[in-house]
């Protein structure tokens, strides 16, 4: 055993549970032996600090209970606040979702109306303008159709 290892084994030596090698080393090494004895002496000094623990006063439990109740009430307040904040966030999320869906629907619907309008109009005024074979009107044909329709109205 090396001198440096004493720091790992001293507590075991103190408890009488150190390996035999530690005892052998302490017999052979005067410096370690002196240190081990001096360390053991600190135990006697420290024993002076041993004391009977103070008894709990009659106010101990009521005081503790009061602190627990105060914490519980505080905790309930924050829990309620968190609950309310959570519900508000959920409501806002639903609102945003509904608005978004509404806008999407509106945009989609507007495109359909813009596209469907001339088709409906052409069906209501058959013969005003000869329909092309491919079913599509050029710009001039659309203008002509609208002017005729306005005149009839």
């Amino acid at each position: 055993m090396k001198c440096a290892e004493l720091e790992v084994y001293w507590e075991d030596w103190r408890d009488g549970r150190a390996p035999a090698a530690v005892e052998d080393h302490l017999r052979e090494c005067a410096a370690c032996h002196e240190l081990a004895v001096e360390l053991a002496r600190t135990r006697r000094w420290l024993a002076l600090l041993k004391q009977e623990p103070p008894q709990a006063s009659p106010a101990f439990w009521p005081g503790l209970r009061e602190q627990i109740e105060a914490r519980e009430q505080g905790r309930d307040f924050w829990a309620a606040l968190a609950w309310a904040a959570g519900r508000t966030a959920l409501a806002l999320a639903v609102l945003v979702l509904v608005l978004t869906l509404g806008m999407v629907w509106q945009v989609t619907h507007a495109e359909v109306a813009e596209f469907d309008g001339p088709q409906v109009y052409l069906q209501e005024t058959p013969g005003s303008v000869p329909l092309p074979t491919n079913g599509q009107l050029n710009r001039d044909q659309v203008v002509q159709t609208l002017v005729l329709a306005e005149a009839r109205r």
Partner: protein
Amino acid sequence: MAGKRPTESGWHPADKGVGEAEPGSERWLIERAQKGDPEAFRALVETHQRRVFAVIAHLMRRPADVEDIAQQVFLKAYLALPRFDFRAAFSTWLYRIAVNECYDFLRRHRAQKAGGAAEVELDEPGDWDRLEVEASESGGSIARRTEARQLVDSLLSRLPEEDQVLVALRELEGFSIQEIAELTKMKENTVKVRLFRARRRLVEMHRRFYSRRPRAGS
């Protein structure tokens, strides 16, 4: 207990069906307390308060502060109780909270003391002789034992807070190395080495002060 409605007293009523622990056993009390039963928690406090007071008293060495710190320990234990999972012994878990609370207190105390509070001086001629006498003899007047105790207290106070706690747990509370390792979440060898070095520092302080002062009769 979070999420339940409090009663008028602020305590939540105990739920039924708390498990299969034997009624009256510590596990049963813990399970009841976890569900918010104040009487179960009170029983746990009464069971452990003496040892908790002793641990705090020896770690802090300031009797006036013991009860306040003990209240903080049990308050923290109550608040953390829903997370207690029975993997460690309840007493170990509780003492760990006490040790941590003492660390915090010692650190705060050191910060306050850094302002320049008076400390017992150890290099007065004869102090160490008295210490040796008082430490080695069971007799002696109360006044002299008190004085010697103050000297040792001052000596111990010069160690870092963590070392003070380790030494107090080992020497004053008589915990084993394994128990201290559990309480402080250190490895056993780390505890042994730190204890050794803390003791060696005490010895070195003794040697330094002893060599400074004139020997009696010289």
